[in-house]
């Protein structure tokens, strides 16, 4: 039965139209995220960066599958576990790694850090460090699209812990009330820091079901299955594009590392067996690789070559970050006020900084 369901996702129009090269590209993107993060972890442990580093390892398929469907007027915004989304949206490894290292060549010139990667030119709006703080921003992006009469949508990602923030519920109410083309994707990895889903959320069947109370359609998907996620996401995108209506889509996934690299209890709130089980039986990258081999469009050798390229790309990014200069002290005061950076008329007027 599960086999049959799985096949039906693969056979869905949206997946049947995929070329072998596109399918291989999904694998390539997952390898790129994974090797990029492994390299960043090494750099973190070598003291190359400060603060937090929230690894997406284990969840790569979610960003790859969902973002694969976006067109030129569709936008993305997420929380601090943002490396995967950033790379899939087209950000370069080098600018991201340099941002982690706090370098002037970073995507935000070293002003944001790993939680705050942005590329508005790629319709990727970050990268936000406050749990659920991005949820009304995603709504606002959808609002702007509708206001301008643009047929598009915004994918707004959040975690299973973020669903308990009031502002997310306010956003759901507004999304439905104002009929806005926003798609909330709950990446349910089972934990919010050290707190399991069972200890953080009251719900009936699914977190996404809460959408019912706001008259918003909802669905769920298995994060191991790229075909399934594409089918479910496509339905949400069509709803957004055709009817300007929101959707809540919950995706079951799992993170292999601690909440962040600095998670002191990474091995305490879940068993090593649980983690091993996921890695062995549910790794989305390996499962996709196997599927492509089974489909006869990829050999193991070709997969290894893709992996190899991803590692090499990450190494180059790491070297680039390492060799890049830090921002200067004067850079502390740029990008605070646009009027200071780009004066208009006879401005800027008055004192902006009180040192």
């Amino acid at each position, binding site marked *: 039965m599960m086999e049959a369901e799985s096949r039906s996702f693969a056979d869905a129009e949206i997946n049947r139209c995929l070329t072998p090269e596109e399918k291989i590209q999904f694998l390539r993107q997952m390898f790129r995220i994974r090797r990029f993060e492994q390299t960043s972890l090494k750099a973190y442990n070598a003291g190359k960066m400060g603060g937090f580093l929230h690894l997406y390892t284990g969840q790569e398929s979610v960003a790859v599958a969902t973002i694969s469907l976006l067109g030129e007027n569709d936008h993305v915004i997420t929380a601090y576990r943002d490396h995967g989304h950033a790379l899939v949206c087209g950000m370069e490894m080098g600018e991201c790694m340099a941002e982690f290292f706090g370098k002037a060549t970073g995507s935000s010139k070293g002003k944001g850090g790993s939680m705050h990667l942005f590329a508005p030119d790629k319709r990727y709006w970050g990268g936000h460090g406050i749990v659920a703080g991005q949820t009304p*921003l995603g709504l606002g992006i959808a609002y*702007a699209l509708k206001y301008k009469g643009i047929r598009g949508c915004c994918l707004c990602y959040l975690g299973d812990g973020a669903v308990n923030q009031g502002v997310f519920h306010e956003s759901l109410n507004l999304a439905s009330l104002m009929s806005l083309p926003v798609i909330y994707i709950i990446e349910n990895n089972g934990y919010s820091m050290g707190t399991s889903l069972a200890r953080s959320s009251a719900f009936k069947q699914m977190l996404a079901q809460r959408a019912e109370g706001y008259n918003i359609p909802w669905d769920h998907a298995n994060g191991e299955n790229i075909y399934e996620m594409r089918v479910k996401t496509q339905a949400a995108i069509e709803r957004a594009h055709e009817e300007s209506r929101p959707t809540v889509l919950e995706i079951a996934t799992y993170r292999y590392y601690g909440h962040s690299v600095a998670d002191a209890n990474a091995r305490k709130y879940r068993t090593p067996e649980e983690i091993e089980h996921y890695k062995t039986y549910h790794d989305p990258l390996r499962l996709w690789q196997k599927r492509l081999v089974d489909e006869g469009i990829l050999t193991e050798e070709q997969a290894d070559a893709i992996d190899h390229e991803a590692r090499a790309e990450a190494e180059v990014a790491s070297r680039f970050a390492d060799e890049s200069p830090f921002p200067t002290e004067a850079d502390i005061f740029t990008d605070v006020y646009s009027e200071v950076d780009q004066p208009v008329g006879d401005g800027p007027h008055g004192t902006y900084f009180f040192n």
Partner: protein
Amino acid sequence: MPLITYRKALNDALAEELLRDENVVLLGEEVAEYNGAYKVTEGLWARFGSKRVVDTPISEAGFVGMAVGASMLGIRPVVELMFWSFSYVTFDQIINNAGCVRYMSGGQIACPIVIRGPANGGTNVGATHSHTPENFLANTPGLKVVCPATAYDAKGLMKAAIRDNDPVMFMENTLLYGEQWEVPEEEYLIPIGVADVKREGTDISLIAHGRAVLTCLKAAEILQAQHGISAEVVDLRSIRPLDEETLLASVRKTHRAVLVEENKPFCGVDAQIASLIQEKAFDELDAPIQRISALDAPAIYSPPLEKLQLPTPDRVVQKALSIC
């Protein structure tokens, strides 16, 4: 020049900007069909329609955040808070998102939003509805904060705020909405960051913002009439950016300063001003800087006492006399 109310001046500014730029949108609780809780947006929904003037549910964190997100894509939302006191449920959206997104994106994202509404005590609505958060918000680099004291300033600053590419926190005053001032019919803008000497004087500088400016003007009249003291009244108008030059020039001229605000004293705006003056004009001072703020307790409800809690002309006069 026609005399118009502070409310009408704001209304005119909003209407002119709605007309000028199709990306300007007014959002907030009761701003459209109800015509605004304080009638600042009166008639605008009827004139501009539901796309441009939008009623929201009581959901400040949600709709302020939504407006911040929309502004990142080039919409210019003017969001009304029924009271600035209610900004406290949306501080995250204001400070972390509006205030930080430009910086954290390395200058890639602009947030041209205006958040406006009344921020004042003195109306017997109790502590929860009487907050004046200009000091909190001016503490966030990335935000601009303005507090107009007259209809003329309200209009010119509102138009500048809407055209500004950074988030502007615009603080009005319910006690001023019905007051009238001369406002020209021709279009004008007041740049943010420029103070205004509301009354010239030679003996002492009374430096204030918001309604406290009017308190100082009354005090200046008393000082002149009853004590022969010529007081200069400097209206900051904008808190951040701050027109240091104008206020320091006044102090260099008069050599005495009383700082007056309706904000609370601890880390109030005037704590910053006092620090600036002593740092940059210490040798010019003939007397210690004095401060008058709201009396340092939650806003009391009891009407006669609340009047005493805010700075009065009499308190300003007494303070001025203590150093003249």
